[in-house]
């Protein structure tokens, strides 16, 4: 039978109200489709891991949106669109969570709404001023010194080695929008300061900039991995995912347990938005993501150590597993409130004092 355009339009017009009516009276419909949510994730191995997790369930279909630039780059888009921002969850870390909490965008979470939080160390969960849990941690990554053993001209054992003239142009140093500027805190610690007294750190950073050893200032995640892979630079301060793929192809030395070279830990996790209609499916999906099995899968694929105490840490991430003694000796836990509220000032100070020397 030949269908004319007029007939097709008439059928379509009739089909709409009929379907709506059928829905209202509870008439049987085809199999219920998964709820669609929109999530903002990191690219590379992280979103690959999340897609594998998504494939292991059918309740939720995720529309993946990737972070463009740093995790903070999404914030102005949300602020401009609020309360109509269309993200059900945004993956981030303490830095971006802190801003979202201050803007009152997030829904508090608890063991009642996300039961697998019971297996996550509570100490690490981001809280608001009322003490409510405001984000769901999924993994922990490290920020630490590492180098490619095959091309690094020296064996690096301490911060002082970074000043060795044989490292001319060989260091990739994180720019002011990277790694919360914790590498500068490391210099400060080495010079007798800390995150509350950064003058020694900036003074040491000036000296390091003047050596000419910094060949690249990493401003995007890929800068670090491509620079190290290509051999442009041989060492630097890295966050874990930047090294995951590089480590598969090149011999890396990760100084996570080296006295005098502090390691920093950060959490990655989910910030769940309160303005969205699919809150329950989003919470359920996030809960599924941090289950022991999915945490293990995430760690294997994304290269961040699981926070769920029942998950298995892959051998490739053993350098991020610390005994309590090792934790005390090698890991420095800064006052994140100070670190986060100082980013603006440190960044401007970097532009004024350090960048002109590079």
């Amino acid at each position, binding site marked *: 039978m030949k269908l004319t355009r007029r007939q097709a339009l008439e059928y379509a017009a009739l089909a709409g109200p009929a379907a709506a009516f059928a829905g209202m009276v509870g008439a049987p419909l085809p199999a219920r489709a998964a709820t669609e949510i929109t999530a903002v994730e990191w690219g590379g191995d992280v979103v690959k891991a999340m897609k594998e997790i998504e494939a292991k369930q059918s309740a939720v279909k995720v529309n993946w949106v990737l972070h463009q*630039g*740093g*995790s*903070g*780059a999404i*914030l*102005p888009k949300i*602020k401009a669109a609020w309360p109509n921002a269309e993200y059900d969850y945004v993956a981030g870390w303490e*830095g971006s969570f*802190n*801003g*979202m909490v*201050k*803007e009152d965008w997030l829904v508090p979470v608890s063991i009642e709404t996300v039961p697998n939080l019971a297996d996550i160390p509570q100490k690490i969960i981001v809280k608001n001023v009322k003490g409510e849990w405001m984000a769901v941690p999924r993994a922990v990554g490290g920020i630490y010194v590492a180098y490619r053993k095959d091309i690094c001209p020296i064996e690096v054992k301490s911060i002082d080695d970074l000043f060795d003239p044989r490292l*001319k*142009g060989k260091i990739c140093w994180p*720019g*002011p*929008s*990277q790694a919360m500027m914790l590498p500068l805190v490391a210099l400060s610690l080495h010079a007798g300061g800390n995150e509350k007294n950064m003058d020694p750190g900036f003074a040491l950073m000036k000296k390091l900039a003047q050596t000419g050893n*910094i*060949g*690249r*200032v*990493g*401003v*995007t995640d890929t*800068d670090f991995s491509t*620079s190290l892979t*290509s*051999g*442009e630079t041989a060492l630097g301060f890295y966050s874990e995912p930047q090294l995951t793929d590089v480590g598969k192809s090149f011999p890396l030395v990760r100084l996570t347990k080296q006295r005098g070279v502090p390691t920093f830990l950060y959490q990655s996790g989910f910030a769940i938005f309160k303005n969205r209609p699919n809150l329950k499916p989003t919470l359920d999906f996030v809960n599924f993501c941090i289950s022991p099995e999915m945490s293990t899968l995430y760690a294997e694929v994304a290269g961040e150590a699981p926070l769920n105490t029942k998950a298995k840490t892959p051998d490739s991430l053993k350098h991020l597993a610390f005994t309590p003694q090792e934790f005390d000796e090698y890991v420095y836990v800064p006052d994140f409130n100070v670190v*986060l*509220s*100082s*980013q*603006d*000032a440190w*960044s*401007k100070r970097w*532009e*004024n*004092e350090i*960048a*002109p020397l*590079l």
Partner: protein
Amino acid sequence: MRAERQAYPLLVPAGLIFSAFFFVPMIGLFVESFRLYIPGNIGSAANAPFTFANYAELLTPSFGGYLLQTVRISLFASLAGLVFAFPLAWWITRRFSPRWRAIAVGFLAVLMFLSVLVRTYALELTFGSAGPFRQTLLALGVAPNGRAYIEFLVGAGLLHYIIPMSALTLLATIQNVDPRLVDAAQALGAPGWRAHLTITIPLCTRGLLTAFLFAFSYSISAFVIPMILGKGRVLFISNLAYNRFSEIADYPSGAAISIVLFAVALALIYVASRYIGRRWS
């Protein structure tokens, strides 16, 4: 007169688009640049008080250095672009057959549409410090990670866009110059180079100025090229603005930098078009 009035509605669509997508956001940016920023917040609060602090903090030698660096590299790249583009445009106009002219113009247009990321990474991979020319550079005594070389690479990245854009701009200009003037000069004994210097180039001044202004406006506001090829060491003003807007979320400061860049670009373009144009035309 009546016909002129009847034509005014034709301006309405473009006027609306510019008002909605340029003037209104720029006004918002301008207002934001005077807001007080509290560190740790995302931008300024809705009722944040007004302040000049965001502009005052730019009155530093280092910000002046960034501004100078942006203008210097943009200026050199724009002038170098004209030096390369003018003979190219002349050759395409005067020497190519109509068929080859169409091919050449098509090629230049394609270059304009090629993703800036693709060209920038192509440059980085080829001439970067880990590229195939690394050994050649070292043999020539050029440090691939040296600041001078990085600045050169940023300029080369800008030329990728400036040359085709300038050449396309200059095609029509050269086309409008009567070739018989140069022929006459040469018939009267002037060497070819002198005929071009005294006839072709002066008659193309307006076109050259237009091409320069296009190139310079593009360069001074470039973001991706210095971000990738500058290795975080050669920063343009737009990179500084991005840093403020992105990780730190200090929008008032980012807005102040953007307004300063906008004002500087407008001032330089005004000076170039008014004084240089008047003197040379």
